């Protein structure tokens, strides 16, 4: 059995998630090789090979300078052919989830996404937005697996490695990278707030944000935040969104009201110093990251808490 690690370059460096794939490949066991894709990435590949990447294929081509689904698809398939790997590990990042299923379909391979562990020979992943876990087994053939960034500690040692140039035909690429737009400057900078009171889909109604959530934030002298569905529904602008596609916050106190605790929300707030969760579902995953929890109706608890805080302040 052998594994191919598909690394990812972000801002000119191999990202941490790629070193997590090294640790994951080691956890699965067996041989592994790696792949670095980009333009002028020979030095990065050599460094990665010596930091746990092992034998590292380098798909180095001007057409691969920026992420392009067709070029990356071709590069990964070429590396699978060259390495003979039967397990292909890709980080579950925006480029990973864009290309990995295409590779699986092209190879007529099994596909298991967003796994966070390998246990009893199975890949473990979350389903139902974090409410249940699933163990999935790979069949006998080739399997493409995407791994959740941050799920496993990155490999941090060094080891013998080597690089090998991989020629990739990207002439068939149709998707064309145009540009990357960075996130716009925010009117609300939650990253500086010491206290954040966030509301989720459980708040249920756009009017309830100014009526219920904002008053608690105000009473505490903090800021209001939200989960993604609140922003998607147009109840609050994007600058309030906490999570992987919003802001990453680390306040002294984070109060999550009517938020279930999906991984994409958790990555944005789990670094908070103290987390309070108010949710009517005792099984909500948010209670796993919170230090203090209330299983109950936020519409009862939050206004009463606001009143108590206001009274305590005198």
């Amino acid at each position, binding site marked *: 059995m052998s594994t191919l690690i598909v690394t990812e370059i972000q801002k000119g460096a191999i990202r941490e998630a790629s070193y997590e794939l090294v640790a994951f490949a080691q956890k699965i066991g067996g041989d592994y090789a790696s792949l670095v894709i980009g333009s002028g990435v020979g030095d990065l590949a050599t460094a990665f090979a010596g930091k746990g990447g092992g034998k590292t294929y380098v798909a180095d081509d001007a057409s691969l300078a920026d992420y392009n689904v067709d070029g990356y698809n071709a590069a990964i398939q070429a590396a699978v052919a060259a390495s003979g790997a039967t397990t292909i590990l890709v980080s579950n990042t925006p480029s990973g989830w864009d290309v990995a299923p*295409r590779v699986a379909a092209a190879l007529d391979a099994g596909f298991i996404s967003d796994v966070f562990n390998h246990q009893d020979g199975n890949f473990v992943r979350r389903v139902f937005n974090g409410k249940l876990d699933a163990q999935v*087994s790979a069949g006998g053939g080739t*399997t493409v697996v995407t791994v959740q960034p941050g799920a496993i500690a990155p490999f941090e040692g060094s080891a013998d490695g080597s690089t090998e140039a991989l020629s990739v035909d990207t002439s068939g690429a149709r998707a064309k990278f145009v540009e990357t737009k960075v996130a716009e400057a925010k009117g609300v900078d939650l990253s500086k707030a010491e206290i954040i009171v966030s509301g989720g889909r459980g708040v249920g109604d756009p009017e309830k944000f100014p009526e219920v959530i904002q008053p608690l934030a105000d009473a505490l002298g903090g800021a209001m935040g939200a989960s993604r569905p609140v922003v998607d529904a147009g109840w609050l602008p994007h600058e309030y969104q906490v999570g992987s596609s919003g802001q990453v916050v680390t306040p002294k106190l984070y109060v999550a009201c009517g938020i279930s605790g999906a991984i994409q929300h958790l990555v944005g707030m789990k670094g908070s110093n103290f987390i309070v969760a108010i949710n009517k579902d005792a099984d909500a995953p948010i209670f796993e990251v919170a230090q*203090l929890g*209330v299983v109950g109706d936020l519409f009862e608890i939050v206004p*009463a*808490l606001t009143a108590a805080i206001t009274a305590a302040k005198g």
Partner: protein
Amino acid sequence: MKILVALKQVPHQDARLDVNGDGTWIKEDGIKFEINSYDTYALEEALRIKDAGEAEVVVISIGPDRVTQALRTALGMGADRAVHVNDDALVGSDSLGIAKTLAAIGKEESPDLVFMGLMSDDGNASAVPPMVAELMGLTSATGVLKAELSDGNVRVERELEGGALEVVDLPTPALLAVQSGLNQVRYASLKGIMAAKKKPIDVKTAADLGVADAVGSGGAKVKIEKVYQPPKGDGAELLEGSTDEIVTGLVNKIKELGLL
């Protein structure tokens, strides 16, 4: 212009999830189902293109009889016709089996654009849309937050981490897997719902589509061994009692943290 929208019917986001008897999925009886949230944005995006000009919108879905409801809703929102793959042979399919089934319909229909949701709210796999594109020989983009059509091209904005965006040009035909929030989804009007009753739903089987060998647990390359409640860690300390007692506990903690 022909636009295909593939949608999945999933357990309602607020449904109670109990693991089934053999521990491999949830109990489906007695719970409410709805159109996967990401797919509603995909349908809306297709309907907006239709509203802005000439387009036929065809919705397709795989699943048992209950899926008719989801397709009727989509037709009520403005889709023109539906294809429903209703076949027990598909039970136990993996993502690739589902993708092969959708791609078989896609090849029959030869659409200019295919819209799907980035992921499903049940399996959370984000697997099927790029697979369908690969199998149909289309270009694709996932996490699409904006799509601008011009002659033979669609310029998309894909969501990256932290709110950054990647702008990509795709020649059509192309498949776009949309991210939630790229539009505000309409409701089916009463008039739409009435009109939908006359719109055709074409029912097909795996054999009709030539994918019988690729689907079901027999065709699956990966298998769910078990589904279970995530193991509980230390978890939160829970405050219990009357609202007053709970609030007192919260206020005391906030004081203890030196934040009051």
